[in-house]
């Protein structure tokens, strides 16, 4: 049986963050899910089924790529973990395949999800198609406009996409709506949450499902470079791609971990402790406890909270969290495209933006270091938005 490393307390706390703050109605569903996950995660057969799907459906393992031109120009040794090469275009599929298997195992015939950039929605719709599950995806109206292509992809895959018109009409509100659906349809519905947030067991479960990124990277770095990276960098929205790649390095103190948030959604540097969407975490909020709207060019990072384990890692200083502006992200997006021939999603472009920013600064921490960047997704979904943006700049 495989023990879960760095597991939260039985109540789901990572130090003082996490827990289970949800309406009473949902408690038994969370307990059922926790049990199903723990049992399955320790079950050789379940793991073999999942591994098979990851290999032969999603296309894992994803390679690591040396970013040669950028390395030379920036002055570090930059390695990219290519989650963009996954089926459906991002790391989200790792989590979704696991949760879809669990849904089937729990006898749920309906699966719901929230989505920001649409990547998690597309991944969920894909898994639902594979497993023959009914699928409903909640998406903020603002996000539906900036990620039109993904909306159509989900619909092609047979999912129903429901526009969310409340609040900021983005990811936060889509999660609210998904939770309301779950409260109502909990008997036959599994809520396939897309990141390491929400009530226990989601932060732990989604981390475990994403830890494949870190496991592969560690082995690949050893095999190809004979060493581990000095620094691991990932963007942080809810924090699933970041925790996925961090998790295998948490117990190796020599490896520095850096999470990059958008300046307009920097809950870890600008937030305070509070409860949103089921867990105690760092939150952008006003003096009364009303949750503020995040503002970012990237729909996938437009979130005022963050996964509770990141809040704990920030507090213990095991990981360092920084932020970058939309302008810095756009430059990084173009840089990676032009220098490496990879169109990244806007989310991981945040990671590169911080690496560039650091290396341009006087006291660079990244100079001549081996830096592993989690390239969490590809940029096809963002091409439209970038086209509009860059056209505007030219006029």
């Amino acid at each position: 049986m495989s023990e879960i490393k760095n597991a939260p307390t039985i109540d789901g706390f990572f130090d003082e963050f996490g827990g289970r703050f949800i309406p009473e109605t949902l408690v038994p569903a969370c307990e059922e899910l926790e049990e199903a996950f723990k049992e399955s995660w320790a079950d050789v057969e379940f793991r073999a089924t999942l591994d098979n799907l990851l290999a032969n459906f999603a296309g894992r393992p994803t390679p690591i790529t040396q970013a040669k031109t950028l390395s030379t120009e920036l002055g570090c040794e930059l390695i990219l973990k290519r989650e963009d090469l996954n089926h459906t275009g991002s790391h989200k599929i790792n989590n979704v395949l696991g949760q879809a298997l669990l849904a089937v195992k729990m006898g749920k015939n309906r699966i719901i999800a929230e989505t920001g950039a649409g990547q998690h929605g597309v991944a969920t719709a894909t898994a639902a198609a594979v497993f023959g599950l009914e699928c409903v995806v909640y998406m903020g109206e603002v996000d539906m406009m900036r990620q039109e292509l993904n909306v159509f992809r989900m619909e092609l895959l047979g999912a129903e996409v429901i526009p969310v018109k409340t609040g900021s009409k983005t990811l936060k509100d889509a999660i609210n709506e998904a939770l309301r659906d779950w409260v109502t349809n909990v008997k036959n519905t599994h809520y396939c949450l897309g990141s390491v947030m929400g009530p226990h067991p989601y932060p732990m479960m989604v981390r475990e499902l994403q830890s494949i990124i870190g496991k592969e990277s560690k082995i690949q770095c050893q095999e190809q470079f004979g060493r581990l990276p000095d620094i691991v960098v990932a963007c942080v929205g809810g924090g699933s791609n970041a925790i996925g790649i961090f998790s295998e390095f948490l117990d190796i103190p020599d490896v520095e971990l850096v999470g990059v948030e958008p300046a307009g959604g920097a809950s870890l540097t600008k937030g305070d402790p509070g409860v949103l969407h089921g867990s105690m975490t760092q939150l952008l909020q006003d003096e009364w406890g009303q949750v503020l709207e995040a503002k970012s060019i990237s729909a996938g990072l437009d979130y005022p909270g963050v996964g509770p384990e990141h809040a704990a890692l920030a507090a213990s200083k095991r990981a360092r969290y920084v932020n970058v502006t939309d302008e810095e992200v756009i430059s990084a997006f173009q840089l990676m495209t032009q220098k490496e021939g990879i169109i990244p999603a806007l989310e991981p472009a945040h990671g590169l933006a911080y690496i560039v920013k650091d290396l341009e600064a006087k006291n660079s921490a990244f100079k001549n270091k081996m830096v592993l960047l989690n390239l969490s997704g590809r940029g096809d979904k963002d091409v439209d938005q970038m086209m509009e943006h860059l056209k505007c700049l030219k006029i």
Partner: protein
Amino acid sequence: MLKNLEVELKQKCQNGQKLLVPFITGGIQGWEETLQAFEDVGADAVEVGIPFSDAVMDGPIICEANDIALSAGTTPDNIFKKVAELKLKVPVIAMTYYNIAYRRGLANFSADLKTYSFSGGILADMPFEASSNWLEAGRQAEIATILLAAPTASDDRLERIATSSTGFVYAVGLLGVTGEQETLATSATEIAKRLKQVTDTPVLVGVGISTPEQAAKAVEVADGVIVGSVLVKKLLANKSPKKTAKLLAEFKKALN
């Protein structure tokens, strides 16, 4: 001195009376006058919603009220002060979400409720396991800490919730969020029945009580009902505290 909420409600139950508790969102136009008017038509207690930006237990009507109240700049402090000024004779209960109380500090929040003449508080997104600090804060401040009990709970769980809840037990009448329902869910009377078997604390059914007929049906088993969305909808639509209270009067008539 304010009477203890639970003692007051129990007395009424013992007199064979069925309890009627209306809800209104604090900060929407006319909410204060509406509370007064509710008292005038015979509400046994009133619930005031302190709006939260991410109200996951609430459906479209109360969410709209929250949005309106928040964009008008409503804060917990505004609501506290106005409630204290109203000097209602019936007990007032605050209904909100965990983060609003947590932001102030659970102990401060409870103490402030007491100071501003509330008799109790409800946190809609706090399950039983997360309730111990809140229950303790309520004990210290001498306010009732009303817990929600949902149809999905095991008998065991219902009993633990009922034992810890003070004031009354809030029986969630259906699988779902607040809002209008065409019929009374069978789960409403079922959960009331299950709770009545394990507790002497008054059991009130809320969520999904939309008509006087539904209320009458629910109190065949329950000790009372909480009525929210239809009243909020009425006040939002016609801005008239009087007409809103008139609707409540129809519920009152149906109950007794």
